[in-house]
Protein backbone atom coordinates (compact mmCIF):
# COMPACT_ATOMS: atom_id res chain seq x y z
CA UNK A 1 0.00 0.00 0.00
CA UNK A 2 1.45 3.36 -0.98
CA UNK A 3 1.76 6.16 1.57
CA UNK A 4 -1.00 8.78 1.32
CA UNK A 5 -0.04 12.20 -0.03
CA UNK A 6 -2.01 14.35 2.39
CA UNK A 7 0.52 14.40 5.26
CA UNK A 8 3.09 15.94 2.91
CA UNK A 9 0.47 18.38 1.66
CA UNK A 10 -0.28 19.40 5.25
CA UNK A 11 3.42 19.87 5.86
CA UNK A 12 3.64 22.15 2.82
CA UNK A 13 0.71 24.19 4.14
CA UNK A 14 2.42 24.57 7.53
CA UNK A 15 5.56 25.83 5.77
CA UNK A 16 3.46 28.30 3.77
CA UNK A 17 1.86 29.47 7.01
CA UNK A 18 5.32 30.15 8.48
CA UNK A 19 4.90 27.71 11.35
CA UNK A 20 8.11 27.70 13.37
CA UNK A 21 7.24 25.52 16.35
CA UNK A 22 5.60 22.11 16.18
CA UNK A 23 4.50 20.75 19.53
CA UNK A 24 3.45 17.13 19.42
CA UNK A 25 2.56 14.08 21.37
CA UNK A 26 3.68 11.01 19.44
CA UNK A 27 0.95 9.65 17.23
CA UNK A 28 0.95 7.19 14.35
CA UNK A 29 -1.45 9.31 12.32
CA UNK A 30 0.91 12.29 12.52
CA UNK A 31 4.11 10.25 12.17
CA UNK A 32 4.95 11.54 8.71
CA UNK A 33 4.33 15.16 9.72
CA UNK A 34 6.43 14.76 12.85
CA UNK A 35 9.33 13.33 10.87
CA UNK A 36 9.11 16.14 8.30
CA UNK A 37 9.02 18.78 11.07
CA UNK A 38 12.14 17.33 12.71
CA UNK A 39 13.95 17.39 9.36
CA UNK A 40 12.95 20.99 8.53
CA UNK A 41 15.51 23.64 9.60
CA UNK A 42 12.91 26.43 9.78
CA UNK A 43 10.83 24.44 12.28
CA UNK A 44 11.46 23.40 15.83
CA UNK A 45 9.68 20.15 16.72
CA UNK A 46 9.05 19.84 20.45
CA UNK A 47 8.01 16.51 21.91
CA UNK A 48 5.57 17.02 24.80
CA UNK A 49 4.77 14.81 27.77
CA UNK A 50 1.11 15.87 27.63
CA UNK A 51 -0.96 17.86 25.18
CA UNK A 52 -1.72 20.77 27.50
CA UNK A 53 1.98 21.66 27.47
CA UNK A 54 1.52 22.42 23.80
CA UNK A 55 -1.18 25.03 24.44
CA UNK A 56 1.22 26.87 26.73
CA UNK A 57 4.07 26.41 24.23
CA UNK A 58 1.98 27.95 21.45
CA UNK A 59 1.06 30.88 23.70
CA UNK A 60 4.70 31.55 24.46
CA UNK A 61 5.60 31.23 20.79
CA UNK A 62 3.01 33.86 19.87
CA UNK A 63 4.22 36.19 22.62
CA UNK A 64 7.65 35.92 21.04
CA UNK A 65 6.43 36.53 17.51
CA UNK A 66 6.42 32.94 16.25
CA UNK A 67 3.63 30.67 15.08
CA UNK A 68 3.09 27.19 16.44
CA UNK A 69 0.99 24.17 15.59
CA UNK A 70 0.03 21.33 17.91
CA UNK A 71 -0.32 17.74 16.80
CA UNK A 72 -2.27 15.35 18.96
CA UNK A 73 -4.77 12.52 19.07
CA UNK A 74 -8.40 12.89 20.07
CA UNK A 75 -7.55 11.28 23.40
CA UNK A 76 -5.31 14.26 24.14
CA UNK A 77 -7.98 16.89 23.63
CA UNK A 78 -9.38 16.24 27.07
CA UNK A 79 -5.99 17.00 28.59
CA UNK A 80 -6.08 20.53 27.18
CA UNK A 81 -9.31 21.95 28.51
CA UNK A 82 -8.24 24.33 31.25
CA UNK A 83 -5.11 25.34 29.37
CA UNK A 84 -7.33 26.49 26.49
CA UNK A 85 -8.24 29.43 28.74
CA UNK A 86 -4.91 30.90 27.62
CA UNK A 87 -6.17 31.29 24.08
CA UNK A 88 -9.59 32.52 25.20
CA UNK A 89 -8.17 35.17 27.52
CA UNK A 90 -5.13 36.27 25.59
CA UNK A 91 -6.58 36.04 22.08
CA UNK A 92 -3.50 34.11 21.13
CA UNK A 93 -3.97 32.07 17.94
CA UNK A 94 -4.04 28.33 18.25
CA UNK A 95 -3.89 25.73 15.50
CA UNK A 96 -4.59 22.15 16.57
CA UNK A 97 -4.35 19.19 14.22
CA UNK A 98 -6.12 16.28 15.84
CA UNK A 99 -6.13 12.71 14.54
CA UNK A 100 -9.27 10.88 15.55
CA UNK A 101 -9.24 7.53 17.26
CA UNK A 102 -12.23 5.72 18.64
CA UNK A 103 -14.69 6.19 15.81
CA UNK A 104 -14.35 4.48 12.38
CA UNK A 105 -13.74 0.75 12.91
CA UNK A 106 -12.02 1.20 16.28
CA UNK A 107 -10.75 -1.99 17.92
CA UNK A 108 -9.85 -0.49 21.29
CA UNK A 109 -12.92 0.50 23.33
CA UNK A 110 -10.81 2.73 25.61
CA UNK A 111 -10.46 5.20 22.74
CA UNK A 112 -14.19 5.60 22.19
CA UNK A 113 -15.42 7.81 25.07
CA UNK A 114 -12.98 10.65 24.33
CA UNK A 115 -13.63 10.34 20.61
CA UNK A 116 -17.34 10.77 21.25
CA UNK A 117 -16.63 13.91 23.30
CA UNK A 118 -13.81 15.47 21.28
CA UNK A 119 -15.75 17.86 19.08
CA UNK A 120 -18.14 18.99 21.81
CA UNK A 121 -15.32 19.49 24.29
CA UNK A 122 -13.38 21.64 21.86
CA UNK A 123 -16.41 23.74 21.01
CA UNK A 124 -17.34 24.11 24.68
CA UNK A 125 -13.84 25.43 25.38
CA UNK A 126 -14.16 28.02 22.61
CA UNK A 127 -12.31 26.25 19.81
CA UNK A 128 -13.60 26.40 16.23
CA UNK A 129 -13.69 22.94 14.69
CA UNK A 130 -13.23 21.71 11.12
CA UNK A 131 -13.40 18.04 10.28
CA UNK A 132 -11.64 16.35 7.37
CA UNK A 133 -13.09 13.06 6.17
CA UNK A 134 -11.46 12.81 2.74
CA UNK A 135 -7.84 13.05 1.63
CA UNK A 136 -8.67 15.60 -1.05
CA UNK A 137 -9.96 18.19 1.39
CA UNK A 138 -7.25 18.01 4.06
CA UNK A 139 -4.72 20.51 2.74
CA UNK A 140 -7.32 23.12 1.89
CA UNK A 141 -8.91 22.72 5.31
CA UNK A 142 -5.62 23.12 7.17
CA UNK A 143 -4.80 26.17 5.05
CA UNK A 144 -8.15 27.74 5.92
CA UNK A 145 -7.76 26.83 9.59
CA UNK A 146 -4.31 28.41 9.74
CA UNK A 147 -5.63 31.59 8.15
CA UNK A 148 -8.53 31.71 10.59
CA UNK A 149 -6.25 31.08 13.55
CA UNK A 150 -3.46 33.52 12.78
CA UNK A 151 -5.33 36.27 10.94
CA UNK A 152 -8.43 36.32 13.14
CA UNK A 153 -6.63 35.14 16.29
CA UNK A 154 -8.84 32.25 17.06
CA UNK A 155 -8.32 28.77 18.42
CA UNK A 156 -9.01 26.39 15.56
CA UNK A 157 -8.87 22.61 15.44
CA UNK A 158 -8.87 20.39 12.38
CA UNK A 159 -10.02 16.87 13.14
CA UNK A 160 -8.57 14.21 10.84
CA UNK A 161 -11.21 11.52 10.91
CA UNK A 162 -10.29 7.94 11.57
CA UNK A 163 -11.79 7.01 8.23
CA UNK A 164 -9.24 9.26 6.60
CA UNK A 165 -6.31 7.93 8.59
CA UNK A 166 -7.39 4.31 8.71
CA UNK A 167 -8.25 2.36 11.82
CA UNK A 168 -5.28 1.02 13.76
CA UNK A 169 -4.80 -2.69 13.06
CA UNK A 170 -4.50 -4.83 16.19
CA UNK A 171 -5.13 -8.30 14.80
CA UNK A 172 -4.11 -10.09 11.63
CA UNK A 173 -6.44 -10.00 8.63
CA UNK A 174 -9.03 -12.76 8.80
CA UNK A 175 -8.69 -13.18 12.54
CA UNK A 176 -11.93 -12.82 14.47
CA UNK A 177 -12.23 -9.56 16.42
Amino acid sequence: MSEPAWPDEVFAVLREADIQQVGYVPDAGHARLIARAHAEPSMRAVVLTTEEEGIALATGAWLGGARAVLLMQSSGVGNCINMLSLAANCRTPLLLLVTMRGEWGEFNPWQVPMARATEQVLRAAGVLVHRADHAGEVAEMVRAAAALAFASREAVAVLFSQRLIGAKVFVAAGEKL
Partner: protein
Amino acid sequence: MSEALDRRAVVATLLAGRDDLLVVSGLGSATYDVAAAGDRTENFYLWGAMGGAAMVGLGLALAQPTRRVLVITGDGEMLMGMGGLATIGASQAENLSIVVLDNRSFGETGAQASHTAHGTDLALVAAGCGWRETRRVADQAGLVGLAAALRTRALFAVVEIAPGEKPRVLPPRHGALLAARFRAALGISDP
Protein backbone atom coordinates in the same frame (compact mmCIF):
# COMPACT_ATOMS: atom_id res chain seq x y z
CA MET B 1 20.84 29.05 60.17
CA SER B 2 19.99 32.35 58.57
CA GLU B 3 16.51 33.80 58.45
CA ALA B 4 14.23 32.38 55.77
CA LEU B 5 14.13 34.44 52.60
CA ASP B 6 11.26 36.84 51.98
CA ARG B 7 9.56 36.16 48.64
CA ARG B 8 9.14 39.81 47.69
CA ALA B 9 12.78 40.56 48.46
CA VAL B 10 13.84 37.49 46.48
CA VAL B 11 11.96 38.54 43.36
CA ALA B 12 13.06 42.16 43.70
CA THR B 13 16.68 41.00 43.89
CA LEU B 14 16.34 38.69 40.89
CA LEU B 15 14.71 41.39 38.75
CA ALA B 16 16.75 44.42 39.87
CA GLY B 17 18.14 46.16 36.81
CA ARG B 18 17.01 43.37 34.52
CA ASP B 19 15.45 45.54 31.85
CA ASP B 20 16.33 43.12 29.05
CA LEU B 21 14.76 40.09 30.71
CA LEU B 22 11.49 38.59 29.47
CA VAL B 23 9.54 37.40 32.49
CA VAL B 24 6.67 34.93 32.74
CA SER B 25 5.03 34.51 36.15
CA GLY B 26 2.96 31.59 37.36
CA LEU B 27 -0.48 32.20 38.78
CA GLY B 28 -1.04 33.26 42.36
CA SER B 29 1.63 34.72 44.58
CA ALA B 30 4.42 34.58 41.99
CA THR B 31 2.40 36.87 39.75
CA TYR B 32 1.85 39.28 42.66
CA ASP B 33 5.57 39.14 43.55
CA VAL B 34 6.63 39.99 39.99
CA ALA B 35 4.09 42.83 39.90
CA ALA B 36 5.36 44.11 43.25
CA ALA B 37 8.86 44.35 41.80
CA GLY B 38 7.46 46.81 39.23
CA ASP B 39 5.04 46.34 36.38
CA ARG B 40 6.72 46.36 32.96
CA THR B 41 5.49 45.41 29.54
CA GLU B 42 8.08 42.63 29.26
CA ASN B 43 6.28 40.80 32.07
CA PHE B 44 3.66 38.25 31.12
CA TYR B 45 1.56 37.39 34.16
CA LEU B 46 -0.48 34.24 34.32
CA TRP B 47 -3.66 34.51 36.32
CA GLY B 48 -4.73 30.98 35.49
CA ALA B 49 -3.62 28.10 33.24
CA MET B 50 -2.04 26.47 36.27
CA GLY B 51 0.93 24.36 35.29
CA GLY B 52 1.55 26.34 32.12
CA ALA B 53 4.14 28.93 33.14
CA ALA B 54 7.26 26.90 32.31
CA MET B 55 5.96 25.89 28.90
CA VAL B 56 4.88 29.44 28.03
CA GLY B 57 8.49 30.24 28.85
CA LEU B 58 9.75 27.57 26.47
CA GLY B 59 7.64 28.74 23.54
CA LEU B 60 8.84 32.28 24.16
CA ALA B 61 12.48 31.25 24.56
CA LEU B 62 12.45 29.29 21.29
CA ALA B 63 10.80 32.23 19.51
CA GLN B 64 13.28 34.74 20.93
CA PRO B 65 16.60 32.92 21.03
CA THR B 66 18.64 36.08 21.54
CA ARG B 67 16.72 37.14 24.66
CA ARG B 68 16.88 35.69 28.14
CA VAL B 69 13.59 34.36 29.47
CA LEU B 70 12.89 33.85 33.16
CA VAL B 71 9.90 31.97 34.52
CA ILE B 72 9.10 32.76 38.14
CA THR B 73 6.54 30.48 39.69
CA GLY B 74 5.53 28.71 42.87
CA ASP B 75 6.03 25.14 43.97
CA GLY B 76 2.37 24.27 43.46
CA GLU B 77 2.25 25.66 39.93
CA MET B 78 5.49 23.90 39.01
CA LEU B 79 4.27 20.62 40.48
CA MET B 80 1.21 20.75 38.23
CA GLY B 81 3.38 21.25 35.16
CA MET B 82 6.19 18.91 36.12
CA GLY B 83 6.11 17.11 32.78
CA GLY B 84 7.19 20.38 31.24
CA LEU B 85 10.52 20.03 33.00
CA ALA B 86 11.17 16.93 30.90
CA THR B 87 10.04 18.71 27.74
CA ILE B 88 12.29 21.69 28.46
CA GLY B 89 15.16 19.45 29.51
CA ALA B 90 14.88 17.61 26.21
CA SER B 91 14.78 20.90 24.29
CA GLN B 92 18.07 22.08 25.81
CA ALA B 93 16.93 25.69 25.42
CA GLU B 94 19.95 27.87 26.23
CA ASN B 95 18.04 31.03 27.13
CA LEU B 96 15.34 29.82 29.51
CA SER B 97 15.63 29.78 33.29
CA ILE B 98 13.07 28.84 35.90
CA VAL B 99 12.98 30.01 39.49
CA VAL B 100 10.55 28.22 41.78
CA LEU B 101 9.59 30.11 44.92
CA ASP B 102 9.13 27.20 47.27
CA ASN B 103 7.13 27.84 50.43
CA ARG B 104 6.16 24.17 50.62
CA SER B 105 2.49 25.05 50.57
CA PHE B 106 -0.45 26.07 48.42
CA GLY B 107 -0.64 29.63 49.72
CA GLU B 108 -3.49 30.83 47.54
CA THR B 109 -5.94 28.26 48.84
CA GLY B 110 -5.29 28.15 52.55
CA ALA B 111 -1.68 27.08 52.92
CA GLN B 112 -2.23 23.35 52.60
CA ALA B 113 1.12 21.55 52.60
CA SER B 114 2.40 20.86 49.08
CA HIS B 115 4.39 17.87 47.87
CA THR B 116 7.64 19.75 48.46
CA ALA B 117 6.79 19.67 52.17
CA HIS B 118 6.64 15.90 51.87
CA GLY B 119 9.87 15.14 50.08
CA THR B 120 9.60 16.27 46.46
CA ASP B 121 12.75 18.15 45.52
CA LEU B 122 11.99 20.03 42.31
CA ALA B 123 15.68 20.76 41.71
CA LEU B 124 16.37 17.03 41.72
CA VAL B 125 13.40 16.49 39.41
CA ALA B 126 14.80 19.08 36.98
CA ALA B 127 18.26 17.50 37.15
CA GLY B 128 16.69 14.14 36.44
CA CYS B 129 14.99 15.70 33.40
CA GLY B 130 18.29 16.73 31.89
CA TRP B 131 18.60 20.32 33.08
CA ARG B 132 22.33 20.96 33.02
CA GLU B 133 22.43 23.31 35.98
CA THR B 134 20.13 23.20 38.97
CA ARG B 135 20.50 24.64 42.41
CA ARG B 136 18.73 25.19 45.69
CA VAL B 137 18.98 28.58 47.34
CA ALA B 138 18.21 29.10 51.01
CA ASP B 139 20.10 32.24 52.04
CA GLN B 140 21.06 35.72 50.92
CA ALA B 141 24.46 34.71 49.61
CA GLY B 142 22.89 32.03 47.48
CA LEU B 143 20.31 34.50 46.20
CA VAL B 144 22.94 37.01 45.13
CA GLY B 145 24.80 34.23 43.36
CA LEU B 146 21.63 33.13 41.62
CA ALA B 147 20.83 36.66 40.43
CA ALA B 148 24.29 36.89 38.89
CA ALA B 149 24.10 33.44 37.30
CA LEU B 150 20.72 34.24 35.70
CA ARG B 151 22.41 36.98 33.69
CA THR B 152 24.70 34.54 31.97
CA ARG B 153 23.10 31.14 31.49
CA ALA B 154 20.07 28.92 31.69
CA LEU B 155 19.40 27.22 34.99
CA PHE B 156 16.68 25.84 37.22
CA ALA B 157 16.58 27.06 40.80
CA VAL B 158 14.44 26.36 43.80
CA VAL B 159 14.47 29.26 46.26
CA GLU B 160 13.32 28.32 49.73
CA ILE B 161 11.16 31.15 50.99
CA ALA B 162 9.41 31.88 54.27
CA PRO B 163 5.80 30.77 54.48
CA GLY B 164 3.03 33.33 54.80
CA GLU B 165 0.99 35.48 52.48
CA LYS B 166 1.93 38.99 51.40
CA PRO B 167 -0.49 41.79 50.59
CA ARG B 168 -1.58 41.24 47.01
CA VAL B 169 -0.14 43.48 44.33
CA LEU B 170 -2.36 42.99 41.32
CA PRO B 171 -1.04 43.52 37.80
CA PRO B 172 -3.40 43.84 34.83
CA ARG B 173 -5.38 40.65 34.38
CA HIS B 174 -6.74 41.17 30.90
CA GLY B 175 -4.85 38.54 28.94
CA ALA B 176 -5.28 40.10 25.52
CA LEU B 177 -3.87 43.37 26.85
CA LEU B 178 -0.92 41.60 28.47
CA ALA B 179 -0.17 39.68 25.29
CA ALA B 180 -0.51 42.72 23.02
CA ARG B 181 1.72 44.96 25.10
CA PHE B 182 4.29 42.20 25.49
CA ARG B 183 4.50 41.72 21.73
CA ALA B 184 4.65 45.48 21.20
CA ALA B 185 7.58 45.67 23.62
CA LEU B 186 9.39 43.13 21.44
CA GLY B 187 8.70 45.20 18.35
CA ILE B 188 6.37 42.62 16.84
CA SER B 189 3.93 44.31 14.51
CA ASP B 190 0.29 43.50 15.08
CA PRO B 191 -1.53 44.59 11.94
